[in-house]
């Protein structure tokens, strides 16, 4: 297990989140959330519906402007930069190069009327690829890596099953070689055997590519498999955080204890 006690060393953090707060009128979305994410590390965020985990993810990923706080990302060219105050073109550029976002519903992250190859190729073309043959080769390669038959490259993504759509979404996101992946309930709505294969695939990709990831889920089994560290959210605040196994095996906060004990034992 990786040593995570040295989290004060922000020089090497890939992502430093500081005091992110988002309010919806009088209601709190998330309040004063801070964490660091190091290269190659996977952070899980768990909590029940309405606990603010998706709001937090959207604020960190730049889909939503937080009311307060900083999201400092260690950019390739410019070193650590606050992505909240960064100009929108720069932030969107990050969003299609170094960052990736896997949506809970594949139809939010895919173009359903476009073929699988077109979906995977879009990010390449968005960063300037203009050679059809090369784009197609890379799309084929990625479809194979996420276990989609390359013969289906020209099928529209709407003709794919739920699990395949989710894998296609992952291929589409990873094709530009991002360093940081945000995932919002990546296994939500899939049946268990499909979930298991997807988790297996994700775990392999994270290891092989040395990806850092922030995964939001309400499924404790998902974080146990994928996440190195865990944050537990309740009513917009972080109530407990630490190493995944430590938090799940020895929960300290009352709410975490409730969450862990609520898992059905098969």
């Amino acid at each position: 297990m990786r040593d995570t006690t040295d989290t004060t060393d922000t020089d090497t953090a890939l992502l430093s989140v500081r005091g992110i707060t988002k309010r919806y009128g009088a209601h709190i979305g998330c309040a004063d959330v801070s964490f660091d994410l190091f290269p190659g590390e996977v952070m899980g965020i768990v909590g029940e519906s309405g606990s603010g985990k998706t709001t937090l993810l959207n604020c960190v990923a730049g889909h939503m402007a937080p009311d307060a706080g900083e999201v400092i990302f260690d950019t390739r060219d410019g070193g650590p930069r606050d992505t909240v105050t960064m100009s929108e073109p720069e932030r969107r550029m990050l969003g299609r190069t170094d960052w990736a976002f896997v949506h809970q519903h594949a139809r939010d992250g895919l173009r359903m009327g476009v073929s699988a190859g077109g979906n995977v190729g879009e990010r390449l073309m968005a960063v300037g690829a203009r050679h059809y043959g090369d784009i197609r080769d890379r799309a084929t390669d990625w479809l194979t890596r996420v276990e989609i038959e390359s013969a289906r490259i020209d099928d529209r993504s709407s003709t794919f099953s739920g699990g395949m759509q989710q894998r296609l979404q992952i291929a589409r996101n990873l094709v530009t070689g991002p360093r940081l992946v945000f995932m919002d309930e990546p296994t939500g709505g899939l049946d268990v055997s499909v979930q298991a294969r997807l988790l297996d695939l994700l775990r392999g990709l994270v290891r092989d590519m040395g990806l850092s990831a922030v995964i939001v889920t309400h499924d404790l089994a998902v974080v146990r498999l994928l996440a190195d560290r865990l944050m537990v959210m309740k009513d917009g605040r972080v109530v407990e955080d630490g190493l995944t196994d430590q938090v799940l095996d020895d929960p300290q906060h009352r709410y975490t204890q409730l969450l862990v004990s609520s898992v059905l034992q098969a």
Partner: protein
Amino acid sequence: MTDRDYNFAYLDEQTKKMIRRAILKGLAIPGYQVPFASREMPMPYGWGTGGVQVSAAVLTPDDTLKVIDQGADDTTNAVSIRGFFERTAGVATTTHTKDATVIQTRHRIPEAALAEGQVLVYQVPIPEPLRFLEPRETETRKMHALEEYGLMHVKLYEDIARHGHIATAYAYPVKVEGRYVMDPSPIPKFDNPKLSDCPAIQLFGAGREQRIYALPPYTRVESLDFADHPFEASKADHPCGLCGATDSYLDEVITDDAGARMFVCSDTDHCEDRQPRGHRGKDAA
């Protein structure tokens, strides 16, 4: 024959001023879609309300107007718009490309080379080239602002994946001066090369969509493509049946119930100009 009950060229002066401001802004930012307060015109949307408003705003009493519809001067749309301006503006009209100072067109660029001092006004149904891929206007405006044009190539990619070549034959997307991606209106892609480095001013009006955009003279306009599937201007592989031209865009005309057909120049002025000069096609009477 001018109808004095109308202001010159139908629209009131304030409206023309507003449209001219939009045109000037369009010319200053080539390829950028300028919103304007499109008026109700005495014709249905989709029949050239945008083009008519732009023409009305640029016409002066000294102008000579030509109106073409798919290249032809004698089709319903062309005849009625020409009649409309004869009546409301009293301007001279012509069918000869080289005699006209303002040419309103639907879906073609004349074959004869345009010259400095001429204005070509296009009727545009859907000004947003990204519309069929991204339905949200808020999103497409952002994509233009931030130059995020990857999606445009997705459309061309899909064409090649499905048909083996870029099958988009009209309204073929172009990039203006290396910046804005623009819909050239539904002209055949055969006409795309004529957009670039054109000595005439090119104005585009979309009435229902309330947008005006423009290309100043000698603007660089490139058709989008892939390195291994380059842009190709295409036409029917025949000579014109009437004038024998091999370099003009052709219409296919079915001539009887047995499927007999002939190919003729879609630009009627070009064809009629050539025939008296001794150019004869195989179907010429």
